[in-house]
């Protein structure tokens, strides 16, 4: 079996993304916001298409129509929630106990909803990502994710945030290890303790060095994310990911991006986006051996974008 390097690169241009954003802006305004899901599809389409693995581009096959439906469903669910909250507040004017229970239930419901949203969002986004026509897929079980989430949330709460490091790693491990491309599967193998120590070290050294260490902290976080990831195919084929970004690279990326966005009053954001994607792909060293020619279509299609749009409505980031 030959061991070799694999090529990952992003070749999108800020100018082209800027044009896309302008067109999106015009249509979003003229439709008073209803165009938003289509605008999102256009943007993702461009960013995926300009990302190449082994000289073949990725593609995003989600459509504005699917996401619009998801958006409406998510909106309706949210409306029901708020209606329930308002009713309980009205009702609670005379019964303070009821009022408190209502508000508490509302927050609890939101927390319980989160893993459902994450699950739905991952399923949709993965099923709509493909490379050479081969779909990605997320095969995690909702029940398990809800369990990990609620347990992690509870323990984080009673340890005053300390368990947060383990919580985050457990969540990532479960979700990323259930991502597939065709018949190959990703594995995320990280330890909560390592993550905790990394953050403690980063936090205190950043304070002691008056912020300078922050760039090293970012390097370590990215490394922790990338280096613990691998792609496996069958019994004995695997591909390893390694970060080669150094603190100085993060310094250049973050400082320049901030300046670009700041000095252009936000208009330069598309350039910051393309610079970031370029940075992420350029600094990911991929080696090992997976026979991509033997990759087979294995993941089912899935088109319900409710979770995806819910996470947009609540402004979750996509990557956990």
């Amino acid at each position: 079996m030959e061991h070799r390097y694999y090529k990952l690169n992003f070749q999108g241009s800020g100018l082209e993304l800027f044009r896309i954003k302008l067109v999106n802006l015009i249509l979003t305004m003229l439709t008073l916001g209803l165009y938003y899901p289509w605008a999102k599809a256009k943007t993702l389409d461009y960013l995926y298409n300009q990302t190449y693995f082994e000289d073949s581009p990725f593609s995003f096959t989600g459509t504005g129509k699917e996401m619009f439906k998801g958006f409406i469903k998510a909106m309706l669910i949210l409306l029901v929630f708020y209606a329930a909250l308002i009713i309980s507040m009205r009702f609670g004017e005379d019964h303070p106990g009821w009022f408190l229970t209502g508000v508490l239930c509302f927050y609890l419901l939101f927390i319980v909803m989160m893993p459902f949203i994450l699950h739905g969002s991952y399923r949709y986004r993965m099923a709509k990502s493909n490379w050479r026509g081969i779909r990605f897929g997320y095969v995690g079980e909702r029940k398990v994710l809800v369990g990990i989430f609620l347990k992690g949330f509870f323990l984080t709460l009673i340890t005053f945030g300390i368990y947060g490091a383990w919580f985050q790693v457990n969540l990532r491990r479960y979700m990323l290890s259930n991502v597939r491309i065709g018949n190959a599967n990703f594995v995320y193998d990280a330890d909560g303790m390592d993550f905790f120590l990394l953050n403690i070290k980063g936090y205190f050294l950043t304070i002691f060095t008056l912020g300078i260490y922050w760039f090293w902290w970012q390097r370590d976080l990215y490394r922790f994310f990338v280096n613990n990831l691998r792609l496996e195919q069958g019994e004995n084929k695997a591909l390893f990911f390694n970060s080669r970004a150094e603190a100085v690279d993060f310094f250049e990326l973050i400082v320049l991006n901030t300046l670009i966005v700041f000095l252009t009053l936000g208009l330069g954001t598309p350039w910051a986006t393309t610079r970031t994607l370029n940075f992420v792909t350029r600094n990911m060293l991929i080696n090992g051996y997976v026979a991509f020619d033997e990759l087979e279509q294995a993941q089912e299609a899935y088109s319900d974008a409710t979770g995806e749009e819910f996470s947009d409505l609540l402004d979750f980031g996509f990557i956990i």
Partner: protein
Amino acid sequence: MNNSDTVFYFDGTGARPRPARLLLYNGGAHLYETGEDHFIAAFPYSEVHLISNDNSYHHFSLLPDRSQALDVANDHPLLPELLIQSGKTKKGLVKRLSGLKLPVLVLLVAAVVAGLYFLLVAGLSGVALQLISPKKEAELGKIIYDNMISGSQVDTNATAMLTRFASNLKLSDKYQLQFTVLDEDEINAFAIPGGHIVVYKGILKKMQRPEELVALLGHESTHVNERHSLRNMLQQMTGGILLSMVFGDLGSMGSVVAERANALQSLSYSRGLESEADEKGMEKMITNHVDPAGMVKLMDRLKEAEKDYHLPGFLSSHPLTAERKEKAQQFVRDHGFRAQPLPALDKEWQTLKAEVGDDVPSRKIDGDRE
């Protein structure tokens, strides 16, 4: 066969590229095995969609769900035709907009923003203004009034006297005006939606003639009658919503820009409202048989106060005092007014003035203070 004639087909079952021959006919792309005439698959042009291109290949997706793909070398003889044919289909609004030159696109964005801004600010805030009844306005005004007054000391005697002074004037048909004097040395006064007019003692001390006070009350009551504060609030809100929608999409810095732009715009708007209040206030003076020259004097007082405090003129919500004075003088010239005695008003003025005291003579007594 030349190498660049071979295309690579991904059939959606695996990621292995399958070399093929491409032929274009019958409104679609047809794929054949290389070397033989064995047919593989055909796709109408509407299902062939350019994804991207790099140094060596143009990448297409196939089928409506894009589950298959095709790589065509940049120097493939049929590539130009395939690009034309696959690009032809569906010439929608999005495609047409995307095809515009960048400067045109930027101008278009600006035009749409400006148009929507105008529609929302003028239209929506106008509708909202109609929907809010004077009664609701008074309720809202009460809350604002209580809030603004809470930290200040009300001079109850002066308040009663000012109320008696104003009872000699016709200032508003629609609103029940209520007056308050605050025991503070600020040279200022303001009106709150629904009918509260608040005057600082500082400005009363500066005044020398009852006409000046009438000018001030005329100005502030116009704010109430014309619902200026409400208009200002509504247009700031609607404008803010739209601009943050636009710039929010471009990035976080954008919302700051939006806020500033909106603030500047509403500044010029409120300056317009101030000019209107000046003019209608002076008209009110005439209907009350009070000499509008009182407005000119009031402006002189403000100018004196500005000398003392160096108020910033630029970016203040009122137009420059000098400008306002000129307009007032113009108004006085245009409306020939014959002053007549107003004994009731004079009497109330004397009482009020005796209560609040006088600030100006100090200049005469120790004029060499500086």
